[in-house]
């Protein structure tokens, strides 16, 4: 697979990236065969920046996060190629327990469903204090004091009383705040948020995204925001990577990508969501159905659904390249970008 690292073509090299995923390949062994969940994924995250990873279910976005944090289900999933470079260490080559040592202190994760992601039988004070007690060896009192601080920081009202409560006694939005608090407890340099707002109501979604943005501004940590919702990440992310069938099909600065998509899939996504400007216009869904990861089509994985497909698309997998006329850090994996999509 010839995947060109985005940063090589990047306009401004602000020093080495914090996290560099290169040609990552992940397979899942299932009863029905081997599924290629990630088929050569590469991207970089710089210190302090926010990357949004977007895609449908099954595109591989969550798998990417799991692979980075060594959370792939052990019996089924495994990294079969590529590397995950963090501070010069290749996480893909390290044994799991070593990677786990970096979890929470360097790279932390917030999960999608806060109800099932919090242990129902322990008080949230205990769960918040746990990183301090177990990873830093702090005493109980000190750790709980820190936990209280964290609770206040994420905006839980009445924190002194509520710290002794159990997860089921909080609302969905509050639970997500608690999850975020747990994740930033040890001041990680990178926070991965896997669909942090999907399980929440629309009004609460905005609050959570604002909270994340505020925390990032305070701590200077980098963020990877995983979502299927293009709108929700728009305010917080600087760069976006669109995933499809285990590959990154487009990546670039978020505003540029939304305004001038360089891949038919992105174009399709943008066309299929309602926006105020196009009121009254009919929505155009993407035809076809999601790809079968057990048997991907030859050539470009999107070709069965692409309105501009030609023979080359069916034969050869396109690699990420910067199309002519587009911004320097904006690239897409499509053979026909310039022909079928206009950069106005």
């Amino acid at each position: 697979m010839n995947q060109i690292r985005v940063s090589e073509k990047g306009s401004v090299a602000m020093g080495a990236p914090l996290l560099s995923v290169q040609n990552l390949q992940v397979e899942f062994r299932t009863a029905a065969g081997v599924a290629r969940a990630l088929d050569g994924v590469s991207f970089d995250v710089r210190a302090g920046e926010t990357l949004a990873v977007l895609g449908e279910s099954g595109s591989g976005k969550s798998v990417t996060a799991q692979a980075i944090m060594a959370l792939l289900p052990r019996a089924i999933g495994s990294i079969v190629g590529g590397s995950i470079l963090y501070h010069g260490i290749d996480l893909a080559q390290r044994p799991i327990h070593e990677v786990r040592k970096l979890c929470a202190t360097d790279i932390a994760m917030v999960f999608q469903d806060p109800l099932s992601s919090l242990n129902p039988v322990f008080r949230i004070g205990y769960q918040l204090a746990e990183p301090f007690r177990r990873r830093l060896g702090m005493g109980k009192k000190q750790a709980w004091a820190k936990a209280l601080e964290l609770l206040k920081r994420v905006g839980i009202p009445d924190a002194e009383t509520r710290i002794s409560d159990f997860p089921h006694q909080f609302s969905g939005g509050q639970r997500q705040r608690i999850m975020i608090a747990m994740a930033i407890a040890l001041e990680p340099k990178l926070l991965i948020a896997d669909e942090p707002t999907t399980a929440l109501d629309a009004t609460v979604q905005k609050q959570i995204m604002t909270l994340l943005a505020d925390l990032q501004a305070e701590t200077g940590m980098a963020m990877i925001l995983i979502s299927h919702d293009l709108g929700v990440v728009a305010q917080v992310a600087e760069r976006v990577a669109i995933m499809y069938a285990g590959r990154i099909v487009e990546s670039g600065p978020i505003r540029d990508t939304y305004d001038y998509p360089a891949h038919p899939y992105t174009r399709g996504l943008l066309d299929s969501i309602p926006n105020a400007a196009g009121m009254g216009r009919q929505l155009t869904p993407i035809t076809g159905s999601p790809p079968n990861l057990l048997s991907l089509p030859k050539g470009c994985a999107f070709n069965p659904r692409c309105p501009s497909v030609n023979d080359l698309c069916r034969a050869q997998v396109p690699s990420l390249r910067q199309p002519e006329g587009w911004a320097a850090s904006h690239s897409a994996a499509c053979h026909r970008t310039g022909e079928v999509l206009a950069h106005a």
Partner: protein
Amino acid sequence: MSSVPTAIEAAKPSLPRARMRLSWRILGPLLVIGVLALGATFVPMLYGYDPLHTDLLMRLKPPGTIAPNGMMAVFGTDEVGSDLFAEMMAGTRVSLIVGVCTLVLAGGIGSLLGLLAGYYGDWFDTALMRIADIQLAFPSILLAILLVSVLGQGILNVIIVLSIANWVIFARVVRSQVLTLKNREYVQAARTLGAGDLHIIFRTILPGCIAPMLVIASVEFGYVVLAEASLSFLGVGAPFGTPSLGSTIATGTQYLATAWWISTIPGLLLLVLVLATGVLGDALRDHFDPSLRSAR
């Protein structure tokens, strides 16, 4: 979070390979049970087994002895000279008959009650569940012993008693399945099309209950066979004159030092039979619905 396996499930075409792999866990036990059933039907006849016949010359002979008529006592003989193999198979016949009849009776009545309780709810449901609670307060063997001591011995009584002891689990499982299905859209749809209550219960909801019923039935079969054997062992099951694996083992305890095979080998057979039903039950459960773990 594991959206990849979900996407795979959604896209999966029906693969014969996956189906074949699980069918061995189902076919194997069925084969074993079938062979045992065949043996139970024909072997006693072939050996001319008669529980009331005594042949003192052939008493307590070890496995492998050749009888005067030239046939070999594969597993030896018992204390009245009968061939143990034939006796075991006759006992298996009783076990299988009791098992099947009890399942049909307990399963039929229990499932019916569960269907009605789940569908109509209200006082009937509450009453049924309270009765079930009381009954479940008795360890089932205890209830069986109590009933048999009152009703007297006999195969029919054993069937009745074990049915009474076991209807509850059918009722509970079917009832909970009905509660799950009752509000599904296809049931509502049938109602809006004008289907009457009976039609809905038996033609719409019942088919959805067959799977759990089968799972429970295969698990319960093993328990019923064991229960019959235990009752016979204690002397409150099969009456004198009717062979049963349990009573054979019981009589054998008096001859442990001299003829260990009388107690040991029928037990192995019992073990194989119950094991087969256990494996079958597990396989069926995994196939249909892993959440049907019965807390017995």
